[in-house]
C-alpha cells in the first residue's frame, strides 16, 4: 500500500509534546501577569454574561434566513462572497444555478487540476505507469476530492459527488488492484450522473471494473453463485435492508450476475474494465421479487446485445422498486435537512423519483424547496459536520487554496494524514455502506478536529501539503488592521465572515473574551490562536 503517513519530524511539529520542565502556573486565586490572569479574566467575563453555570441547557440551533440556511446545506461550507452572490441571484435562481453545474464556469480549478493526470487515466495506463509505486494516483484521487470540495464553484454538485461516492462506497485499498480502478469509477460513474439519472448511475456502477472488483463479482461464475455484490446491491445501493427482499432473492440476483467479470487481455485498452463472458453464466430460469428474469443469454440472435440482459433486468427491477425510491429519498433528506426525515416529505420525494424514472434533480427540488428552509420549518434539523466537511468548511471559510505541486510528483499527503486521524480519508471506508452521517458516529472524538483547526492555521505556510491561507487576506477581510485598536467586535466579525454565524452568542462572547484578555499582541500566532479557538467551538461543529 502506498504510504500516506507523515514523517516523524512533521508529526513532532504538529503534535508538540509539552516540556516536562515547564514551571507550574500560579494558582487562580493569585492572579499574576500572563496566562493565569488571562484565564481569570475570561472567566469573569463569562460569569458576568451568563452566570457561568456548567452543563447549562444546550444552545438552540441558530436561526437563519432561508437562503443562508440553504447555502449552509448545499455547499461544502459557508463563504461570505458566495453568500453575497447567492443573495444577488435570489433563492430559486441560486438553487437552479447549482442544479446545473455545467452552466457554472469552473475553469480556474479545472486548469489547476490538469496536472493531476492520473485522474484521467485508464486502468491500463495506471498499471503501466505506476505498478511499482502507486503513491501518485492514490494521493491524487483523494486530494482532488479535497481540492474540488474547497474550491469548486459547483458546490452542490461536489456535495452530491461526495454523497454518491459514499452510497456506492468502494474501498481504495481493496486487494492489489482497486487503486487503478477507482479513479475511473469516480470519473465515469459518479461524476457524470451525480445530478442526473439514478438508474443510469446504478447501471454504470454495476458494470464498472471498480465495483466488479470491489464486491468480487468478477469471480462470480456458474455453479455455486457468489453473493457479495447481489446482497449489497439490494441492501445498500437500492432497496435498503428492510426493502422487502429475501435470502432467495439474493441468490437469484447472484445467479443473474454470473459471468460479469473483468477484461483480462493485457493488450486490450479495456483491460480490467467490466465485460460479460457468457460461458461463465449460470443458465436457467431466475426470479426476483416475483418477476421472472428472462434468460436471453443463450439465445443467439444477430444484432441483439446479449451481454447484459439478465443483469440489466435486475437493475431495472430494483431501480423501479418503490423501496428504492423511499430508501434514496430518506437518505438524501438526511444528507441535506435533518437526522430524522419526516414521512410525508420522504413520500413526496420518493414520488418525484418514481414520476421521473429516477431523476435526482427532481428529488432535490422537493427536498431543497424554500419552505423547508424557512425559520419555522419543522423539517430542518441540526446536522453534525463529518470530519471531511469540517476540514473543507474551515478551508473554504479561510479562502484556503490547496498548494498543488508543479511537477507531477506525488502530492504531499499532510492533509490526508490529518484526515486519517479523524477517520475520514476519502475513498477509504472499509465496508460497502459508506461513511456514516450521524452525530453519534462522529461526535465523540473532538480532539483530532481541534488539532486540525490549529494545524491548518499555524502550519499553513510551512507544510507543503496543506491548504494555503494568507493572514493579510484574513485580516483585511475582518478589518483587523491595527492591534489592539481593532480588537473590539472581532469575534463577532469572525463569526459573521468566517463561521457563517454558526457560533452562538455565548460562544462569540467567550471568543471575544479570549481576544480581549490576550496579553501579548495579536501577531499572526495570536491571531491564528484566536481563530482556531473559534473553529474548535461547538457551534462550528454543526451546520
Amino acid at each position, binding site marked *: 500500500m502506498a504510504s500516506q503517513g507523515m514523517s516523524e519530524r512533521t508529526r513532532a511539529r504538529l503534535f508538540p509534546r509539552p516540556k516536562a520542565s515547564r514551571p507550574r502556573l500560579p494558582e487562580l486565586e493569585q492572579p499574576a501577569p500572563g496566562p493565569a490572569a488571562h484565564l481569570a479574566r*475570561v472567566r469573569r467575563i463569562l460569569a458576568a454574561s451568563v452566570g457561568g453555570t456548567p452543563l447549562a441547557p444546550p444552545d438552540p440551533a441558530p436561526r437563519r434566513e432561508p437562503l443562508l440556511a440553504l447555502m449552509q446545506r448545499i455547499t461544502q461550507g459557508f463563504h461570505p462572497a458566495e453568500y453575497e452572490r447567492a443573495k444577488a441571484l435570489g433563492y430559486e435562481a441560486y438553487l437552479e444555478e447549482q442544479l446545473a453545474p455545467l452552466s457554472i464556469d469552473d475553469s480556474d480549478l479545472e486548469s489547476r487540476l490538469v496536472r493531476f493526470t492520473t485522474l484521467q487515466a485508464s486502468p491500463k495506463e495506471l498499471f503501466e505507469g505506476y505498478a511499482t509505486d502507486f503513491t501518485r494516483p492514490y494521493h491524487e484521487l483523494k486530494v482532488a476530492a479535497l481540492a474540488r470540495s474547497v474550491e469548486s464553484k459547483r458546490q452542490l454538485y461536489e456535495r452530491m459527488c461526495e454523497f454518491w461516492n459514499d452510497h456506492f462506497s468502494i474501498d481504495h485499498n481493496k486487494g492489489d488492484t482497486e487503486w487503478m480502478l477507482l479513479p475511473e469509477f469516480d470519473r465515469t460513474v459518479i461524476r457524470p450522473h451525480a445530478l442526473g439519472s439514478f438508474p443510469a448511475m446504478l447501471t454504470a456502477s454495476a458494470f464498472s471494473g471498480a465495483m466488479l472488483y470491489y464486491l*468480487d463479482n468478477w469471480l*462470480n461464475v456458474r455453479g455455486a453463485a457468489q*453473493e*457479495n455484490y447481489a446482497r449489497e446491491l439490494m441492501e445498500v445501493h437500492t432497496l435498503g435492508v428492510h426493502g422487502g427482499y429475501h435470502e432467495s432473492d439474493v441468490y437469484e440476483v447472484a445467479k443473474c450476475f454470473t459471468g460479469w467479470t473483468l477484461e483480462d487481455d493485457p493488450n486490450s485498452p479495456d483491460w480490467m474494465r467490466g465485460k460479460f463472458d457468457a460461458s461463465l453464466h449460470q443458465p436457467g430460469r431466475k426470479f426476483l421479487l416475483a418477476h421472472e428474469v428472462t434468460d436471453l443469454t443463450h439465445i443467439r440472435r444477430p444484432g441483439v446485445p446479449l451481454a447484459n440482459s439478465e443483469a440489466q433486468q435486475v437493475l431495472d427491477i430494483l431501480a423501479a422498486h418503490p423501496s428504492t425510491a423511499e430508501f434514496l429519498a430518506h437518505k438524501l433528506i438526511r444528507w441535506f435537512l435533518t437526522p430524522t426525515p419526516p414521512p410525508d416529505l420522504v413520500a413526496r420525494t420518493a414520488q418525484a423519483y418514481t414520476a421521473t424514472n429516477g431523476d435526482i434533480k427532481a428529488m432535490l427540488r422537493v427536498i431543497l424547496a424554500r419552505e423547508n428552509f424557512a425559520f419555522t420549518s419543522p423539517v430542518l434539523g441540526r446536522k453534525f459536520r463529518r470530519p471531511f466537511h469540517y476540514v473543507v468548511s474551515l478551508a473554504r471559510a479561510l479562502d484556503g487554496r490547496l498548494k498543488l505541486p508543479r511537477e507531477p510528483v506525488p502530492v504531499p499527503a499532510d492533509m490526508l494524514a490529518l484526515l486519517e486521524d479523524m477517520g475520514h480519508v476519502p475513498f477509504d471506508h*472499509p*465496508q460497502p455502506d459508506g461513511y456514516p452521517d450521524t452525530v*453519534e458516529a462522529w461526535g465523540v472524538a*473532538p480532539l483530532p478536529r481541534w488539532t486540525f483547526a490549529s494545524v491548518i492555521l499555524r502550519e499553513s505556510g510551512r507544510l507543503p501539503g496543506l491548504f494555503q491561507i494568507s493572514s493579510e487576506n484574513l485580516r483585511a477581510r475582518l478589518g483587523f488592521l491595527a492591534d489592539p485598536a481593532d480588537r473590539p467586535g472581532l469575534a463577532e466579525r469572525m463569526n459573521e465572515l468566517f463561521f457563517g454565524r454558526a457560533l452562538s452568542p455565548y460562544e462569540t462572547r467567550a471568543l471575544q473574551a*479570549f481576544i480581549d484578555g490576550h496579553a501579548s499582541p495579536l501577531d499572526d500566532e495570536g491571531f491564528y490562536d484566536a481563530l482556531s479557538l473559534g473553529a474548535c467551538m461547538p457551534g462550528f461543529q454543526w451546520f
Partner: protein
Amino acid sequence: MKHCDDCGETPASSRSIRPSRRAFLGGAATLTGATVFGAPALGAPRTTGKPVLIQVFLRGGMDGLTTVVPYGDADLYALRPTLAIPPPGSVDGALDLDGFFGLAPAAAPLLTPYGDGRLAIVHASGLAVPTRSHFEAYTDMESGDPSGGLRTGWLSRYLIEVAGLSTSPVRAIGIEPRLPLTLLGAPNALAIPNLARFRFPGVLDTSLIRQAIISDTYSRASAPVGAAALDTIAALNLGGIDFGAYVPENGAQYPTTVLGRQMRHTAALIKGNIGVEAVTMDFGGFDLHALLGPIHGAMAALLDELTRALEAFYLDMLGHLDDYVLVCVSEFGRRAFENASEGVDHGHGNALFVMGGRVNGGQVIANWPGLSPDVLADGDVAITIDYRDVLGEIVQELLGIADLAPIFPQHTLIKHGVTT
C-alpha cells in the same frame, strides 16, 4: 495488512510502563487543582478492582470453519472440497486442539495462551437471528438486544450499571476514529484513534485558557458532543502514560501494524491503571466472498496478524493476567459450503475467543450441531450457544454484575463454563 507509521517498537531504558510524570497539561488540573468547570480530571492511579474488558471485533464475518476447523466432522470436507483445512498430520493440516477441532496453521500463535489454559474457544456460537446482513448484525449483536428495540450498546449499559464505582472521565476507549455500536450511548467513552497522540494542540502559552473556554462552551453543547469534549479535556495525555517509550515485557513482539499498535497501547494503558474499564478495537477484512485463501492467502494473512497480536498481548500481560478479559467476536460466521469463487458467503454460527487469567481455557466449548444438510441453518452452521451467554457469564462472574437484565434484556443466561 494495515501498516502504521509509528507502530515500531521503541527502544527505551525502562522495562515497564512508567506513569511517572504528571502531565503538564493533564486536564488543566494544574491550574484548578481538580476540575475545569466541574469536569473531573485524571489524577492518581485508580482501580475499580475489576478486569478491563477488551473487545476485538472481527469485522466482515470471520470464517470460524477455517480458524477453528471441525476436522472431526467428515461433512466439512464434502461442503468445502477445496477450501477446508485438512486434518492434523496432513500437509498444511490443522493444529490439533482436542481431537475434534484444530486451529488453522496461520492461527498457530493462539496455541501459546491455549496451551497455558488462558484461552477458551467457543464454537457454533453467535447471534441467533437469521440476518445475513453485516450492518443489521452489527446493530443487533452490539446492542445485546436483538429481539428488542434497544439501540444503545450492551457495553454502554454495563458501564451505566457500575457508574457509581468510577470517577474517571474516561471509562471506555475505542482505539479508533469512531466508537463501535457496542459503546453507543456509553458514559465517559471516547474514540481515541492513537493513544500516543492524545495531546492538546496549539500554542502552549494559551493552552490552559483555550481548554477552559472549550470546556465551558461544550458544557452547553448537546449529547454526546458536549460530554465527549469535557471528558477529552479532563483526560488529556491519559495520565502521562508514555506510550511511545513503552517496552513490552517477556519479549513480546507485537506486529508492526495498526492492530499491533492498538494491542500494545492497550497493554500500556492497563498497566498505567488510570481507571479505564473497557477498551475496544476493530480488525476488519474478513468479508472474503472470493479467494478465501485459508492456507496461504487473504484469510491466512489476517489470522497471522490477528493471532500474533493476541499472543504478544498475552505474553506482555503475563504478570497482569487478572487485570483484563479479552473477547474476540465477529458478526457471523460464513456459509458452510464453498462457492464457485473459491470463497464463502455470509453464514451464521461461528467461533469466538475469550482470553484472560480467569478464563477456563485450553478447551473448545461447543455443542457441535454437525454439518449434515438436515442440521444446517439455511445452509450454515447452526448456533447452539448464544453469544450473550458468553458475554453474560463474563459480566456476571468476572465483572460482578448479578442481574444481567439491563445489559442483555429478554435473555436467560445459560453458563457454559467459560470462566473459572
